[in-house]
């Protein structure tokens, strides 16, 4: 998958500081692209722009050569074709685990009830959650909730999966549970873009890395090269800090 970004800018709050500042990038990755960098560097904002949840102030994004639209109906179609997992509170609390997966299949993708139910059950099975189908989100652990959220994102068969720090609100045990699940998804053919603070994990699953700081791309390329010998002093300092322990 090829991700091209040209002179992208996004201020947040609107009109204030530029969180993404004249960012350009051209990277082709195999399966997993990790967006890394210090907090406030623009990783999550970039992911939201790729997800079509926000519009850039300037610039453009091309995914496999296709320019991302700027009008809401086309953006909605774009969002329909991908899966997003946020930090937390992904699930709709008034729907059961299986209801959370079925609802978009029926209402957005137009599946009939039987097909949506079968697919939702299959996803829960695959992610080891079949015993929790009828539970509401507040009856699930944090790790289980994130796994249901991943099941919901995967169910319609998206062309791209986006993860925005999917484990940052979890304790270490649950983090491991979710990370091993994401690791397992590498076998599927769905490409993933991942914002994470789990550097060891990024090193393990990512084939390519984009290092962002101050709203710009400082470095991008194969993960092995990035982790072995980062070319910018900022990336080097960042890695030595986060990998020190």
């Amino acid at each position, binding site marked *: 998958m090829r991700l091209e970004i040209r002179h992208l800018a996004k201020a947040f709050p609107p009109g204030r500081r530029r969180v993404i500042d004249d960012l350009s990038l051209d990277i082709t990755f195999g399966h997993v692209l990790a967006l890394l960098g210090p907090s406030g560097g623009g990783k999550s904002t970039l992911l939201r722009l790729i997800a079509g949840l926000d519009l850039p102030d300037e610039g453009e994004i091309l995914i496999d050569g296709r320019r991302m639209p700027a009008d809401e109906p086309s953006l*909605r179609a774009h969002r329909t074709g991908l899966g997003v997992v946020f930090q937390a509170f992904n699930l709709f609390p008034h729907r059961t685990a299986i209801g959370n997966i079925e609802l978009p299949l029926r209402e957005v993708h137009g599946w009939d009830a039987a097909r949506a139910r079968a697919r939702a059950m299959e996803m829960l099975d695959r992610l080891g959650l079949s015993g929790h189908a009828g539970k509401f989100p507040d009856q699930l652990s944090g790790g289980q909730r994130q796994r249901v959220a991943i099941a919901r994102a995967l169910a319609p068969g998206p062309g791209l999966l986006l993860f925005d720090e999917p484990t940052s609100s979890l304790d270490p045990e649950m983090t491991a549970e979710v990370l091993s699940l994401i690791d397992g998804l590498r076998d599927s053919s769905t490409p993933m873009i991942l914002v994470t603070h789990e550097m060891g994990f990024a090193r393990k699953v990512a084939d390519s890395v984009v290092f962002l700081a101050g709203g710009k791309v400082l470095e991008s390329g194969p993960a092995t090269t990035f982790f072995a010998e980062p070319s910018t002093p900022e990336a080097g300092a960042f890695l030595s800090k986060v990998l020190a322990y």
Partner: protein
Amino acid sequence: MRARFLVLGSPGGGTNPRVAGAWMVLLLLLLSAACVTVLGSSAALTRGGWESVWAYRGVLLRGWMLTILLSVLALVLSLLIGLLAALLRGSRVIPLRMGAILYVELIRGTPLLAQILFLYYAVAGTIGLQDRLAAGVLILSLFAGAYLGEIIRAGIASVPATQIDSARAVGFTPWQTHRFVILPQALRVILPPLAGQFASLIKDSSLLSVIGIGEFTLAAQQVNSATYRTLESYLPLAVGYLALTLPVSLLARHLERRLHPGD
């Protein structure tokens, strides 16, 4: 602290519902005993009081029914007005937003009695609204709509932004986002105070007696002037209102417990 002193005022926090229920029954018994005492002495003084009021039971019953009708109509209409006010308050169009704020502040800043007098005598006549009942329902709805608008707005605001992100991320349209995500979650927050507001509406409708709508309070006043029996006219009035508001308050408390079991 509060829960321990005000058994009935605690929203279930820390107080065993059975203990609270037992207290309620006990207090109701005491209250009934007090009433019986008052009634007994009053009956001794004014023999035949109840018989003369009993002759007018049809008037009271019709008034009571009209109060129910007025309240239900006003509830439906005020829900629509409240929903509109809540949505307009969130509008990006400044005149609409300011209009909604002005409406809410004007209504909440003036007494209902003043609104009834002003809107009925100064406005309704001018715009050619002759029907008392229609005017009454409309005034009551405008009044309650301002309060409901704030309740609905708070309910919608209580849905976290991450839920809206998730809804958009799965591909929902704005309408689907409202239907499947925002409103069902807002409803949990809205329902208990909404039931409470309905109880207020029932009581507030008594003020419509001042513009000559023959609802429950006016009916009791008429019975009183026909029979000269104050206690026998007004005690059924109080009981009649309680018969309506108590179930609604109990419903509100039940919803509160069911929808917010953790609080």
